[in-house]
């Protein structure tokens, strides 16, 4: 007798569970060893709290009323709940920086007939209140240690800058609806659309080509020189910030698996400065992501810079299996 469960959810049976638990333990051990204490937050929060994270309201998909009529929502990621936790529990009682880690289910909308999961486990860290320069580097180092612990030696971390295009478009005078359309093209990496949108906005063809070329720059430190050659004040701002981070990573011998990527654009509204994505050659999808979100804590009443990342546990597990079959 089959008793169905909702599409996009699943049961985990012992063989898989054993492997998932082993992976979870390995990750938490790495986080704890580097001073990140594990926390848990409720799976459901007030909708208004979760909505503070993402200005576009794309936060949570599952909303419902409790018995007293309050609007609740299931979390779609852990960064916003942890921002709330830090503001509520630590501010005034404990000195920053705060180093926290988590292993938690997050809930997302799925598109029908696509085999996507509504519920997935995120494993990650948040570093709140460290200086931006040191914070980014530390978070990348923790991420590298986590990938090592998961046995994903070939995994690559993409490092980009979330402010680059926002500032570049401002510099080019692209505003309003056109700006949104251009950012949408950038986010989906539709280069044909990007070229059309920018040309339609009256940007000269040389600058349009510069913009398109910029999105294609990814690789080692040579990318930074190439980007500098493309000029512009906003490019310079982003590049000097990326250079500093990359130089520091090199100094610590942690730059080998980092790929600078000026085409990177995360779709969560709260990122600022450095952004990260994680790839493995064995898998066609990203394994996780993160970055800086220096403006987020302010929305919870404390002005602290912050950075973090989340790995998608099930995908890391899939990549582990693929790598072991090579």
């Amino acid at each position, binding site marked *: 007798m089959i008793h169905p469960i909702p599409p996009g959810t699943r049961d985990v049976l012992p063989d898989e569970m054993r492997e998932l638990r082993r992976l979870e333990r390995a990750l938490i051990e790495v986080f704890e060893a580097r001073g990140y204490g594990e926390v848990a937050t409720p799976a459901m929060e007030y909708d208004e709290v979760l909505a503070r994270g993402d200005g576009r309201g794309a936060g949570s998909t599952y909303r419902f009323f409790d018995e007293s009529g309050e609007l609740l929502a299931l979390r779609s990621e852990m960064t916003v709940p942890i921002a709330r936790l830090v503001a509520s529990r630590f501010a005034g009682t404990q000195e920053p920086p705060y180093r926290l880690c988590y292993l938690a289910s997050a809930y997302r909308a799925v598109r029908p007939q696509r085999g996507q999961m509504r519920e997935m486990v995120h494993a990650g860290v948040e570093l709140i209140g460290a200086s931006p320069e040191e914070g980014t580097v530390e978070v990348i180092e923790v991420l590298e240690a986590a990938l090592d612990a998961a046995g994903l030696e070939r995994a690559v971390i993409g490092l980009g800058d979330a402010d680059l295009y926002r500032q570049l478009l401002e510099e080019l005078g692209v505003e309003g609806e056109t700006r949104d359309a251009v950012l949408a093209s950038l986010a989906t990496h539709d280069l044909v659309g990007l070229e059309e949108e920018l040309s339609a906005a009256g940007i000269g063809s040389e600058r349009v080509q510069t913009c398109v070329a910029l999105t294609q720059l990814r690789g080692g430190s040579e990318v930074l020189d190439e980007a500098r050659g493309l000029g512009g004040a906003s490019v310079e701002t982003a590049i000097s910030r990326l250079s500093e981070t990359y130089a520091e990573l090199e100094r610590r011998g942690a730059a080998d698996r980092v790929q600078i990527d000026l085409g990177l654009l995360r779709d969560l509204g709260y990122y600022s400065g450095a952004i990260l994505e994680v790839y493995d050659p064995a898998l*066609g999808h990203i394994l996780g992501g993160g970055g800086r979100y220096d403006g987020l804590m302010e929305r919870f009443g404390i002005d602290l810079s912050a950075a973090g990342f989340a790995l998608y546990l099930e995908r890391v597990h899939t990549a582990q299996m*693929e790598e072991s079959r090579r």
Partner: protein
Amino acid sequence: MSGFADSRARSDGPLKIAVPRGALFGETLDVLDGAGIDTAELRGDSRSLIFEASGVILVTMRPSDVPTYVESGAADVGITGKDVLLEQADRVVYELLDLGFGRCRMVLAAQTGDDRLAEAQRRLGMLRIATKYPRIAERYFESTGRQVELVEVKGSVELAPLVGLGDGIVDLVATGRTLEENELEVREEIVECTARFVANRVSHKLRATEIDELTAKLREASR
């Protein structure tokens, strides 16, 4: 965050290129030849679907399957029509290049000289449109403020208005001959479509040099 479909595909080994069979096939092979990839084997009458040539693997498939293979990473890059990409806008693939060939128009067409479309709009407040492209059609009518009931068909959509399945059709038109033969005419042009070169997002990051080189060669070859 998008694209959480489960995927087991690898991006190791030779670069895998998704090649569309059908209307775009010939010109796709031409442009691949121009980019230095030998496609002689694909031009033969082999029933194989996968070919190895010039250090890459060419995987042939229906154009509408290209985004599926590329999104999952089963193919690193691919070529397909903009009509397919628009219809499957939720597939996460990077659109790198407009190859210029396979030019055709997505149009709203109705029976020649017939005013059913206008009458349905005026008297019923609602158009009944048959199409193979329900998502493109839905977006188009929504953006032009018209209410519409879409009837999705898989085969010859020109048939629909002739037998009363819909007041008009939304379909792809290259020369317009099929429309003419079925006594249909173009009423509105929705969007122009050409062949596009697309890439898997992880392959685009991890196989940057290969993909950039191929993109540059294809850009040259498609001029």
